[in-house]
């Protein structure tokens, strides 16, 4: 195991690196470092041995925390690149070529894509808007700060939920930026929704039937917004698109720590379910993601522009074919 991969894995485990893009970038950078230090063992070819090596790194990362769909896409891209390396390349040339590919992927598919998304989405913010966001999405945060830089006058409602309370860090940064914010919990979303004009949400992945796979609670926010006919905009990079179809949240999901729903962090005394702790007929369920059906979504903002959720398969077909990406 390479130390960079080991470090990233432990950071995932400890929850130091969270968020789809951050996790993906950290993983790719660790792989890039591992590739730089890699030497092909005697009597083996780089293509086969390195693929196996990456495979073992990936299974280690899965041990630490299940992969997100975006990371799966990035790994498939890297493996594809390794498999397609021309045999004529020397080892060092192959390694530089792979590292360059990884850098390009990070730059074009994540960093530049975010900038394009922010530029597109900011055209949909008008003066006097009340924007609602749920949890903490780095693209939405970039969008809000960009809109503020453009001098738009708007108000932000941050909706948050237990147990992760990810919105708090976002709230802190936005308030420090001088934005007008309202902070509330998911329970109050139907109360606050009638004064909201736009809902901006991030996504962990978008599936080809237009279903948005995102932090648990997103579906509830989107549904309430739909009921109040508030447009829901999803900001998501195209590398997170996946050709799979999913109809509910259970068939593919990630389980969080079940104790997190029962306990309040930092308050050992608040544990109302403590007495029920080990009952066989009690199951504590802490899902990490949920699936938002496409009919609740007005628009998906990606690096290819603003598209309706029905066009996700077009993007997958045209650009995500064979995981060629770049």
């Amino acid at each position, binding site marked *: 195991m390479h130390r960079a991969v080991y470090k990233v894995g432990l950071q995932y485990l400890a929850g130091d690196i969270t968020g789809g893009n951050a996790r993906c970038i950290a993983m790719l950078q660790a792989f890039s470092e591992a590739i730089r230090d890699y030497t092909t063992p005697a009597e083996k070819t780089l293509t086969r041995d390195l693929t196996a090596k990456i495979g073992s790194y990936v299974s280690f990362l899965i041990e630490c925390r299940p992969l997100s769909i975006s990371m799966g896409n990035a790994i498939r891209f890297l493996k594809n690149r390794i498999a397609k390396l021309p045999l004529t390349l020397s080892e060092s040339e192959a390694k530089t070529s792979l590292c360059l590919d990884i850098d390009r992927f990070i730059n074009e598919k994540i960093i530049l894509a975010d900038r394009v998304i922010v530029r597109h989405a900011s055209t949909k913010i008008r003066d006097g808007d009340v924007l609602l966001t749920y949890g903490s999405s780095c693209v939405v945060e970039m969008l809000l700060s960009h809109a503020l830089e453009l001098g738009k006058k708007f108000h932000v409602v941050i909706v948050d939920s237990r147990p992760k309370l990810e919105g708090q860090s976002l709230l802190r940064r936005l308030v420090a930026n001088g934005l007008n914010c309202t902070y509330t919990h998911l329970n109050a979303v139907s109360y606050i929704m009638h004064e909201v004009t*736009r809902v901006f949400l991030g996504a962990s992945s978008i599936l080809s039937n237009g279903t948005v796979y995102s932090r648990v609670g997103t579906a509830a926010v989107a549904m309430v917004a739909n009921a109040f006919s508030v447009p829901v905009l999803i900001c998501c990079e195209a590398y997170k698109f996946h050709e799979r179809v999913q109809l509910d949240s259970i068939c593919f999901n990630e389980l969080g720590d079940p104790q997190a729903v029962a306990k309040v962090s930092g308050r050992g005394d608040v544990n109302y379910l403590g007495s029920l702790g080990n009952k066989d007929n009690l199951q504590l369920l802490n899902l990490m993601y949920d699936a938002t059906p496409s009919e609740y979504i007005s*628009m998906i903002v990606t690096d290819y522009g603003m*598209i309706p959720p029905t066009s996700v398969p077009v993007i997958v077909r045209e650009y995500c074919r064979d995981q060629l990406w770049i």
Partner: protein
Amino acid sequence: MWRRSASFILDKRNDTGARPDFVSLSPPQTTASTMADTLQNPNAKVSAYYQTRAAHHGVVTSDWLAQAQAAVGKYSPESDVRSSSSAAADPGSGKPFSVIDEFNNWRKQPDLAEAVAAIRALAAVIRSSEATTMMELEIELKKASDSLKSWDTTSISLTAGCDLFMRYVTRTSALEYEDFNSAKSRLIERAEKFGEISYKARRIIAMLSQDFIFDGCTILVHGFSRVVLEVLKTAAQNKKLFRVLCTEGRPDRTGLRLSNELAKLDVPVKLLIDSAVAYSMDEIDMVFVGADGVVESGGIINMMGTYQIALVAHSMNKPVYVAAESYKFARLYPLDQKDMAPALRPIDFGVPIPSKVEVETSARDYTPPQYLTLLFTDLGVLTPSVVSDELIQLYL
């Protein structure tokens, strides 16, 4: 200058003898206050697109014009349109060749869509260009298309037509291998082909939509759309038996023109006021509308009132068909009604409106895709979600 209708001129002159028989559709008692209202409403910011539409499709038909001209003698609305357009073309007239002038020349043909006029004008830019390199030519073309687009920002089809022309004409790999002259002639060839495709689009749509018009059906149409008229005309020529309900199409009353055209074809027509749509919806089999622009979501931007008709039709489970040429596909994505560049036009209410009262003067609305059944385009019969598919393939 904005003018309402020929009946206004006629009534001003009190020349009842030359009044065409369908003037009775507009109540004569309103026209006196109409005059006051026209004077009251100086056109502060009027959409040029809708002004042209009104001039071409409004109740001012050519036969009416002839009669009106005979009645008034000196006053010709045709010259009025011309003077307003040449005034708008002024900034470009200093140059020997101006794309705007060319565009306005084409635009005068009432049967030619604005986007097709723009496409023809851009083709003329290539032809008359004195550029010696491909790069120069492309920059020249880009400038011309930008000036066309900025000439009237409220017209969606104009912008979309220019963009599509640039895509279609300049995106050909053959250009890289040839010398400049043959590349230029290739561009001209492609430009003319595109112009031809756009021009024929209306016929193709009319042919495609015939399968959907069955004997004994009742069709509701809104406003005046040349494509819809072509569709209905073809259906009548094919000896289909159908009935048409026309909305009045306030404020420029374009529905009256359509009913007039249909009556000439011996199609049974019934006129409705715009607010009678829900009342008549149960006897309707399908709704047929045109579009000013088709947006990325698959929804349409069309004359004010289309959205409410689509809503009523949707709630009564009637299909809503849209006839639109593919050069109207625009890379726009409105989220709601106010999320568009405003296109305003004056509205005459028949009585003077106190200055304290606000008037909604927007000329168009946005119909979201979930209320549309099918779009008839020259690319085929599409569901709304395919529009974005086509746009992605065209632009990316």
